[in-house]
């Protein structure tokens, strides 16, 4: 599925603050340019596993069509140091996240270190490695 860059998705031109993950699979999927996007959605699953934590969430485009997103995050140990746990996000949470988009234009991104907004409240994602 190609990413529909429509309403509800704001393309941000500022320098990416994306975390440098210690990802064992690399971050070659993602843009390295100074480009991030911000999306609003509803959590469908929060996967707390090593070495990847990731969040699956649904985003509605401007026509009301639901797009299934995935956001890759840092490892549990790094997130734990930032105060996270396996229950920090729950199914149904309303989130606003800033991501580095991938080069293929699909709805998968690397969550930046910028704050996530969860149910209206900011939540720090944690430091860079």
């Amino acid at each position, binding site marked *: 599925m190609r990413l529909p860059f429509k309403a509800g998705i704001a393309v941000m031109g500022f320098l990416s603050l994306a975390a440098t993950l210690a990802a064992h699979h690399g971050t070659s999927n993602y843009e390295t340019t100074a480009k991030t996007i911000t999306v609003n959605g509803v959590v469908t699953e929060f*996967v707390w596993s090593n070495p990847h934590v990731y969040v699956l969430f649904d985003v509605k485009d401007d026509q009301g069509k639901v797009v299934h997103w995935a956001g*890759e995050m840092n490892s549990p140990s790094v997130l734990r140091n930032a105060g996270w746990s396996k229950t920090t996000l729950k199914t149904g949470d309303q989130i606003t996240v800033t991501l580095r988009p991938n080069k293929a234009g699909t709805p998968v991104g690397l969550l930046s270190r910028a704050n996530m907004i969860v149910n209206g409240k900011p939540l720090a994602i944690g430091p860079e490695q």
Partner: protein
Amino acid sequence: MRRSTLSSLLAAALLAASLAWAPLSSGQEKGKAKGKGKADAAPAVSVPHDPHDLSGVWRRSGGVLTMSATPPAFTPWGKAKFDATKPVYGPRAVQGGFGNDPMSTCDPLGMPRNLFLEVSIYNFELVPAANRVYQFFEWAHSYRIIWTDGRPLPKDPDPRWMGYSVGAWEGDTFVVHSLGFDERTWLDHFGNPVSDDMTLEERYRRLDRDTLELKMVINAPKAYTQPWVSETKTLKLAAKPDMEEIFCVPTEEQRFNKLVRDPGSGITSKQ
């Protein structure tokens, strides 16, 4: 009153002395770092150490994530093996879903790749025991045994992910010789080859309580035209002695690849 003051001073002096001579494990716990990475800096104060005691949890401190910046020239066999790799790091990096790094399917990293500690937040621990030294790798929750009982290396062994290793002290340097490697591994995440004729020499030296130096040489005439001498690797004692349970779980990895890595590479057909 004076006696009380004197007692307090004496107690403080004893406490200071006990901290200065605290054992290695206390030194690691003293850092009180909550986690790893930058927060995991080892204590700055140098204290007496036993250069023949390598025990501790060690973290990478800088350096390249391979032997040295430039490998020796490949043999034709080595070149063909290198060309068949599709790394997701370095100048030949492809998007994650198109890579074929064995790590992305949770295959063992093998040696010397484990020693590079390429996932920077994960460490290794050296645990001397009777007639052997255990080396535990936090990544993939794996370990190897370095035999120190004087046994010779096996001749014509079956290949193993970690190979076969023997170690002995040469002065203050712990020297490990290994062979019998499985050439399905990659030498590093850039895709440099491992051959089944490879031998590995590791030379560990504890420079002070908090610093471990590691130099390596591989000889793999099937893959490289010359020995590959490593840069000098520096490892620092981790402030936090805990090693987490970082298994690479194939089912979790498959699901991650299906939901995140592959679609992030534009691959939607894989199930």
